């Protein structure tokens, strides 16, 4: 059992105690075992290291992701570390999407230079300029791919590298627990 498993089990015990379910307590070993099996194809390596992206590619991609789900009064794609999810995905199960990604970034670089000058990168543009450029390409396969990957990274299990501190789930109001009790929502509580 590694550290992660121990913390998961402690989490389970804590959450079980709070709901006080006799059943769940008596079945803890089974549930904990089920949780231990939550092994993922993509395990997050050490922080702040990229497996696929160069630092430049990561900065540009993250800037796009941050336009798709921006940071405002609540955290967005950047704080959810969506960029690490995208990097792991392109390194593993989404490796067939690499060409669209790499070509799309090159194309974005060209468009940025053409519109805003030779020394400019997309990530260095103002938010308004970024929005304007992305609006121009929002129907392209590249944008669609970045949008999809940003959303997957924002809302998939944190074990995949994104959805850091469950920022994505908190945004939606989603909770991932094994046990809820009725009433579940406003109208069944009325």
């Amino acid at each position, binding site marked *: 059992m590694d550290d992660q498993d121990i913390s998961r089990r402690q989490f389970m015990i804590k959450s079980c105690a709070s709901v006080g379910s006799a059943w769940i307590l008596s079945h803890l070993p089974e549930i904990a075992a089920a949780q231990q099996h939550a092994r993922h194809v993509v395990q997050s390596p050490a922080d702040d290291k990229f497996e696929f992206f160069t630092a430049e590619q990561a900065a540009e991609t993250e800037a796009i992701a941050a336009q798709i789900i921006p940071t405002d009064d609540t955290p967005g794609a950047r704080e959810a570390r969506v960029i690490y999810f995208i990097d792991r995905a392109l390194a593993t199960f989404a490796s067939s999407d690499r060409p669209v990604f790499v070509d799309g970034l090159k194309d974005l670089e060209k468009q940025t230079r053409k519109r805003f000058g030779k020394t400019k990168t997309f990530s260095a543009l103002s938010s308004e300029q970024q929005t304007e450029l992305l609006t121009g390409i929002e129907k392209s396969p590249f944008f669609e791919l970045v949008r999809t990957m940003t959303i997957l990274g924002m809302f998939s299990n944190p074990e995949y590298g994104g959805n850091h501190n469950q920022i994505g789930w908190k945004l939606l109001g989603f909770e991932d627990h094994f046990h809820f009790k*009725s009433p*579940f*929502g406003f*109208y069944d509580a009325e």
Partner: protein
Amino acid sequence: MIHQQVRFDAQTEIDFVIIGAGAAGGIIARELSTAGFRIVVIEQGPYMTEKDFEHDELKYMRQRAITNDYKREPNTFRATEKEKAKVQPAVIYGRQVGGGTVHFTANFWRFHEVDFNERSRWGSIAGSGFDDWPISYAELEPYYTKTEWELGVSGLAGASPFDSPRSKPYPLPPLPIKSSGVLAERGAKKLGWHAFPAPMAIISQPYRGRSACLHCGFCEYFGCEAKAKSSTLATVIREAEQTGRCEIRADSCVRKIEVNKAGLVTGVTYFDKSGREHFQRARAVVLCANGAETPRLLFLSKSSLFPQGLANSTGKVGKYLMFNGHARASGLFEHPLNEFKSVAVSRVIHDFYDSDPKRGFYGGGGIDMRFVSYPMNFALGGLPPDSPRWGPKYKALLREHFTRTLHATGHTTSLPVESNNISLDPNVKDAWGLPVMRVTYKDHAEDMKTMGFFQARCKELIEAAGPRKVWTREVRNQTFGFHLLGTCRMGNDPRTSVVDKYHRAHDVSNLFICDGSSFVTSGRGQPTCTIQALAFRASDHIIRMAKNGDIKSAI
């Protein structure tokens, strides 16, 4: 592992090979092994158990952890037989021990009396093979009861004024009502309709050694970690193994059912996980591979005796594919519903179940209120169609809508149309080098009208529940099916059906076929309960025939 697993050696004489460990195969395996027969169940998918299941949307929904994998086993699709089919996902089915009962939503309506004799009551319908079933509701009723009690179903008998008679109440009380259920009741009351507690194959209280539902919300598309969903994996398959006479051979893909010169089935040839070929001899074969894989395997099993495919002398194998129709109207509500918690559906409405000549077309269905969206897929496409797809407004809408969205969903009839079918694609091959299935499907005009009618009723229901905003999804010809029905229909006339009323193939006396393919008509959208009742009934008849020496064997 808690359950014992038998491994038969090559010399052991096997009574029945069952192809497919799903909704029907699991039940038949348990019934036949309990009756004393030696059984090998060959399942193309893996043997996963509750400990393997996870709350992992990426893995289960995007990467197809427990359903057919389109990369290894693609299918092709075309709307009509005149078109050339293109590679495009058109069917989904469970692909592991337990089959679709592992990942299904667990809606568990019985069919009504009318579903079995509607052709007689309504008349013929042009452009369809609309027909009565060779069995009645009354004949199946004891098996519906058996299904509910053997598997564990929660519901409230007598709560729907439209239900057909039942001999016993449900074994378990209904699951708790959700906000969607309260709003369904509220809307139905205003409209003079009747919302009743949803019958669900999820246990509301501990039952036969299994624990009650924990309301985690991961039902549809996921396997239940708590064993509360009454899948065949969590119930009858374990019991079959405990007899010591049933081996579940997972990761094994049957490529052909073999016959001898007399036209009797001798066994099956299959690939194991490593791609090595094996032959398993048996006295008889029961094919339960689902309404799409079953006809495909019969086509793949063609031989000089059966040049059109096994059991297909009439050419009806693969024909009359039915998906069920769907309709939807959505609403955004003032307060959080938190529909991500607990089971998908808590109230159902059957006021429009029967066809009504006054509507001017054939068709009927049921309506429920549900959300069934997980975070990723909701963010990808769950907002109303006029919403921005990225940026600050998109983010604000996600936040507002996720806990407050609800869909009134109609589940409707599909007519059996001969040109809607499963065949082998002449060009595309799967990872084993076998021709993939080609799906041809276009909804009958009456089915389109029924979907339109149900969309209007769904909109009325959502509006009557008092939302802030309402939107609908355009009714279109379906190109994707998760209910796979009708492709080896049962009937008394061997010229118009593939199996008889006991699920024996008209052409081959030691081949039985029992799954969604046996359906003559589609019902109103929730087929699993009926597939499983048919499986219990077929088992009784197979056991009777085998014990009476009525199944001729090649061994």
